[in-house]
C-alpha cells in the first residue's frame, strides 16, 4: 500500500460543510458492530482465529456487492500492523479508525495478539470505512457532512446486508447482534452527530445543554472523545444504549427530537450574540482571524479555538473573504499527524508550532 498520507489533501467528506443544518452540524456518523458466529471475540482469539476472520471479512469487503452498496469508486485496504505509527495517527485524525485500532491493543491492554488487523476505506469520499479485528471483528462506519442520519441508516443497512451475504453473524434471540462488550449488543449501532457550538460556549449555556442531553441518556463528548474538553467547540452527541430500541426509533429520537433542539439553541445564541453583543463578537472573531493570519507559533488547541471563532464569524457574516470549507479543513490539517506528514522529516514540538503557524497563515492569506 502506498502511504495514505500522500494524495490525501482533499477527501474527508465530513468536512465539506454541506447538507442539512451544516451551519451547526459538522457531520453525522453511524457505526455498527458485528462478529462472526463460530469464532471467539478478539479477547479470546488466537492468531490463527484472527487470520481466518480477517480473511473472511476482507474477501467480502473487496467484493462487488460491497463496493456497490458502499457507493465508493474504489475500496482501499490497509493492513494496519504493516504501516507506521504516523500513518495510523493520520487515519485516526481523519476519523477513519479508532485510537484503539491504531494502537492495536484491546481496551484492557491484554487479550489476544494484536495482528492481523486492518481497515477498508471507500475512496475518494472516505464516507465508508470498515475496521476488521478491532474490539469487535467488524466495525462498519459511514459518515456524511451535515445532519443526515436517515440516509446513513439506509446506507449502512445496505452495506451490512452486502457483507452478510457471505458471512454468518453471531446473533442471539434476546440480545441481538453479539459484541465483545455487553454495552454494544442489540442493534450494535451508534449514531453520532458532531456539532459546532461556539455561541452556546460563549453565552455559557453549553453546560445546560450538555446536562439536558445526558438526561436523555445521550453521551456528549469532545472532539478527542470521552473525558476530553471540547476542542474547537466541537461536541459529539450519540446514543448510549443499543438494546431495546430499533435503529429507526434511535434515528428518529436523535434526528427529529433532540439534535434539532440543540441546533435551535445554538442558532438562538448566535442571534443573541449579533443583536446584544455585536461589538464584542465582531471584535472576537476579527481578532481570531488576525491572530491566525499573523502568529508565528501555534499549538493544536489554540489553533482549534481560533478557527472555531473564525468559523462563527464567517457564519455570522462578520468576516469576509474566508470560506467556511477552508476553515473546516484547517481544523484537520493543524492536527499533529497531518502536520507532521506535510513535513519531510521528524519535527520537534517547537518546529511543529512554527510549521502549523506557517500553514495557517498561508491558507488564510496572512503575512
Amino acid at each position, binding site marked *: 500500500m502506498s502511504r495514505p498520507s500522500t494524495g490525501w489533501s482533499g477527501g474527508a467528506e465530513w468536512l465539506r460543510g454541506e447538507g442539512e443544518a451544516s451551519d451547526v452540524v459538522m457531520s453525522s456518523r453511524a457505526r455498527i458492530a458485528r462478529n462472526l458466529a463460530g469464532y471467539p471475540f478478539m479477547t479470546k482469539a488466537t492468531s490463527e482465529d484472527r487470520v481466518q476472520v480477517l480473511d473472511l471479512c476482507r474477501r467480502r469487503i473487496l467484493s462487488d456487492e460491497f463496493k456497490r452498496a458502499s457507493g465508493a469508486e474504489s475500496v482501499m485496504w490497509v493492513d494496519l500492523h504493516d504501516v507506521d505509527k504516523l500513518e495510523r495517527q493520520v487515519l485516526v485524525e481523519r476519523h477513519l479508525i479508532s485510537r484503539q485500532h491504531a494502537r492495536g491493543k484491546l481496551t484492557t491492554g491484554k487479550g489476544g495478539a494484536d495482528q492481523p488487523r486492518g481497515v477498508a476505506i471507500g475512496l475518494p469520499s472516505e464516507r465508508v470505512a470498515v475496521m476488521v479485528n478491532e474490539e469487535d471483528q467488524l466495525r462498519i462506519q459511514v459518515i456524511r457532512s451535515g445532519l443526515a442520519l436517515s440516509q446513513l441508516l439506509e446506507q449502512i443497512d445496505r452495506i451490512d446486508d452486502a457483507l452478510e451475504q457471505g458471512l454468518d453473524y453471531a446473533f442471539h434471540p434476546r440480545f441481538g447482534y453479539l459484541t465483545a462488550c455487553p454495552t454494544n449488543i442489540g442493534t450494535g449501532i451508534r449514531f453520532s452527530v458532531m456539532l459546532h457550538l461556539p455561541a452556546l460556549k460563549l453565552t455559557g449555556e453549553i453546560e445546560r445543554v450538555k446536562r439536558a442531553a445526558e438526561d436523555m441518556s445521550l453521551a456528549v463528548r469532545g472532539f478527542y472523545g*470521552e473525558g476530553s474538553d471540547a476542542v474547537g467547540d466541537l461536541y459529539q452527541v450519540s446514543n448510549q444504549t443499543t438494546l*431495546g430500541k430499533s435503529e429507526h426509533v434511535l434515528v428518529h429520537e436523535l434526528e427529529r427530537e433532540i439534535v434539532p433542539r440543540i441546533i435551535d439553541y445554538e442558532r438562538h445564541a448566535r442571534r443573541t450574540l449579533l443583536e446584544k453583543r455585536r461589538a464584542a463578537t465582531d471584535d472576537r472573531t476579527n481578532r481570531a482571524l488576525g491572530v491566525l493570519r499573523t502568529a508565528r507559533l501555534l499549538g493544536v488547541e489554540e489553533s482549534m479555538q481560533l478557527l472555531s471563532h473564525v468559523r462563527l464569524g464567517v457564519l455570522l457574516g462578520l468576516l469576509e473573504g474566508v470560506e467556511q470549507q477552508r476553515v473546516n479543513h484547517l481544523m484537520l490539517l493543524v492536527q499533529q499527524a497531518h502536520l507532521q506528514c506535510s513535513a519531510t522529516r521528524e519535527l520537534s514540538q517547537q518546529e511543529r508550532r512554527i510549521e502549523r503557524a506557517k500553514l495557517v497563515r498561508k491558507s488564510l492569506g496572512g503575512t
Partner: protein
Amino acid sequence: MLCENCGQHEATIHEVLIKGGTKMEKHLCEVCAQVAASEPSSNLPINELISKYMVSPGVHAGEASEAREAPAPTVCPSCAMTVREFRQSGLLGCPVCYSVFEDQLGPLIERAHEGGACHVGKTPRRALDSGRERGDVERLLGDTRERAERLGALRKQLTDAVEREQYERAAQLRDEMRRVASVLGGDVGGNAGDGEQA
C-alpha cells in the same frame, strides 16, 4: 511548569476534569497529552456497572450449594472466559458466553441499556430469508415467549409515546411492531431467494 507525566517538556496542555464529583487537574506537554487523549476511558462505565450490578459468583455459589441447585457457571465451555476475567476487562470471550452467563449478565445489561432487556430491530437478513424451517427461525429470533416479550416492550413504548403526544414516534413504533409481528406470523420464507440480488 514541566509536564507531570514525562517531566521533560514544558507543560502546555492544562486540563480540568470533573470525575465523580472530584476535580482533577492535569498539566501535560503536547506529546504526552496526545498519548493521554488516546488512552481509552470508554471501559470505565462498564466496569462501574459490573461492580454494581453483576452478582458475585462466590456469594451465589455458597447459597446454591446449600439449596442443592446447580451453581452459577463461572467459566464458558467454549472459550474458557471466566466470570472473573469478564469482571476485570468488561469484555466477553465469544458468542456462547452470552448464553452461558445469561442469568448473571441480565441485570447488568438491563442497567447498561436503560431498561432495554431484549433486542428490537434488525435481524440478519440472509440468515432469516434462508431459514425456512421453524427451528432456524426460533434459533434466530427466539421462541414464542421471547418474541411476545419483544412485542410487549414495543407496545409499552407505543403507549408512552401516545401519552406524550409524540405521534410521529408512535407511527414509527407501529411500523416496528408490524415488522416484528409479520415475522411472528410465520411469513418468513416469503421473499427468500428472489429480489435480493436484483
